[in-house]
């Protein structure tokens, strides 16, 4: 394995980087991991927004239901949702699995399909009381 034309051995012998650089790299990667951890602790979303073609519709997440769009099957299971089946060739969308946190989304580009979890703090224009 080589990095910028240096072998692993040369890198470890501090030819490319100096000792302090490794410290900075370590701190940097730690921040990434910590913030990723924070990212996974995000609150759960409240509803599912599905855009299919030109249409956008919203569904409550608090239900057990299978929604069928022409080529795609979406499963909602009490707070989480996933693309269950799709006719696309690489099946990336199916591989994404369950989504449940705010602003997470699953997309199937060949079918122009996008679903994302939204939060209730999302904008509204006025309040009825």
């Amino acid at each position: 394995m080589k990095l910028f034309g240096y072998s692993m051995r040369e890198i470890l012998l501090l030819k490319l980087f100096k000792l302090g650089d490794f410290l900075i790299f370590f701190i940097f990667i730690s921040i990434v991991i910590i913030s990723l951890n924070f990212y996974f602790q995000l609150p759960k979303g409240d509803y599912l927004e599905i855009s299919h073609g030109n249409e956008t519709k919203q569904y409550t997440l608090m239900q057990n239901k299978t929604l069928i769009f022409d080529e795609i099957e979406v499963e909602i299971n009490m707070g989480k949702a996933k693309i269950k089946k799709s006719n696309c060739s690489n099946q990336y969308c199916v591989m994404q699995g369950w989504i449940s946190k705010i602003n997470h989304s699953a997309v199937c580009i060949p079918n122009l399909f996008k679903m994302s979890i939204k939060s209730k703090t999302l904008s509204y224009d006025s309040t009825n009381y």
Partner: protein
Amino acid sequence: MTAQTINIHQISKFCAIAIILHSAEFFFPTPIFGIKPGIANIIILFTYLKFNFKSAVYVSLIRVFISSLIIGTFITPTFFISLSGAIVSLIFLFLCQFLSHKFFSIYTFSMLMGLGHILGQFTIVRIFIIPDDGVYILFPLFLLLTFIFSLINAFIVSKLISPSN
């Protein structure tokens, strides 16, 4: 020519290159929303190494102002994001001067400048553009990309300063 005029001549040349890189970046298509490698940072770091911190400040700020005029984003949110990124990045560069050159190479410099850049940008975005904590979702992604691009930028700088290559 005195030494000073040579200096100004060189700095303005660097400014011109920084402006070109900065503007070129702007017009490249974006595969992922809001991400650029910050190649202009190469010049800032190079200026710092070749001359001094003051010259780097000149080049960085002149680049932000002039290229925003060229792109047409002067006094728009994009401009302020760039400016705050550049300023915080320069602050980090200033602090880097106090690091021991025995233990820290330009990779550290580049890394910390990149970090400063996104910190400055995120602050402005969070306060003025998208006043929602949702923007922090993008933070780990930006941090990771900063890591990668800073590494590459620093490598380019190292190639530029060592004439052997």
